[in-house]
C-alpha cells in the first residue's frame, strides 16, 4: 500500500513540474519520470504487458520530445527560479493530499474471466488491432509527407 502511495505522490509531483517548469528539457524529463512511475504502478496492478508497453512508448516519446525540445529551444528562453520551483512543490503537495486520503464509492463486479491477454487482443479485438495498424501507417505517412514538404520548400 505504501509503495502505491509513494508512486502516486511521485506521479502528481512530476506531472505538476512537467507543466510548471519553464525549461522544455526539464519538463520533458519530468514527463518521463511520470511515465516510469505509471509503468511501475501498472506492474503493481498485475498488468505487466501494459507496463512494458507504457515503458517502451514512454522511452520513445521522451526521446522524441527531448530532440524536439532541443531543436525548438531558443537561447533566450527564461529559466525557472528557485521560488517558482518551491511554489510548484507546495502545489504538488496540496494536490497529493486528496489522492492519498480520498476515496470514491465504486461498485466493481469481481468475477474471474477465463481469458488471456493474447486471446483478448487477437480474438476479441482483432479488427481493432488491424485498424490500429492502419492508423499507425497513416500517421507515419503523414509525418513523412510533412517533413518532405518542408525539405522541398527549402
Amino acid at each position, binding site marked *: *500500500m505504501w509503495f*502505491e*502511495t509513494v508512486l*502516486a505522490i511521485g*506521479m*502528481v509531483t512530476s*506531472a*505538476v513540474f*512537467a*507543466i510548471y517548469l519553464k525549461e*522544455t528539457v526539464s*519538463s*520533458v524529463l519530468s*514527463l518521463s519520470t*511520470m511515465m516510469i512511475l*505509471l509503468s511501475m504502478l*501498472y506492474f503493481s*496492478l498485475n*498488468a505487466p*504487458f*501494459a507496463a512494458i*508497453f*507504457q515503458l517502451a*512508448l514512454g522511452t*520513445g*516519446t521522451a526521446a*522524441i*520530445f527531448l530532440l524536439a525540445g532541443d*531543436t*525548438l529551444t531558443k537561447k533566450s528562453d527564461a529559466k525557472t527560479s528557485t521560488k517558482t520551483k518551491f511554489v510548484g512543490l507546495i502545489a504538488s503537495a496540496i*494536490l497529493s493530499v*486528496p*489522492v*492519498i486520503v*480520498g*476515496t*470514491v464509492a465504486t461498485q*466493481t*463486479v*469481481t*468475477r*474471474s*474471466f477465463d*481469458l*488471456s*491477454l493474447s486471446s*483478448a*487482443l487477437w480474438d*476479441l*479485438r482483432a479488427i481493432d488491432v488491424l485498424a*490500429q495498424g492502419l492508423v*499507425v501507417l*497513416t*500517421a507515419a505517412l*503523414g*509525418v513523412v509527407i*510533412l*517533413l518532405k514538404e*518542408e525539405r522541398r*520548400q527549402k
Partner: protein
Amino acid sequence: MDYIILSVTILAIGIVGLVTKHDLIKMLIAIEMITAAATMNFVVFGSLMENPLGQAFSILALSVDACVTAVALALAISVFKKLNIRDVRELSEIKEELPQEENRTVEEN
C-alpha cells in the same frame, strides 16, 4: 488510496496545462498527460475486475496516442522551422495579419 482520484488529479493537471500554457511543446506534454490519465483507467478497472481486456484496450490506446504525438510534433517542428514560432497566440496573430486571399488559402489547406 483511490486510483480514480489519482487519474482525475493528473487529468486536471493536464487540462490546466493545456489551457494556461501557449507553448506548442508544453501543450503536447499536457495532451500526453491527459491521455496517460485516461489510459490508466483501463488498466485499473481491468485489474480490479480481473479482466485482461483492460490491458488490451490500454495497449490500443497507447499506440494511437503515440501516433497523435508523432504527427503533432512533426507539425510543431514544421511550423517552427518555417515561421520560427513556438507560441500558439503568435500563430493566431499571423493568421489574422495575412491578406484576405492568403487567409482563404490557409483555411482551404
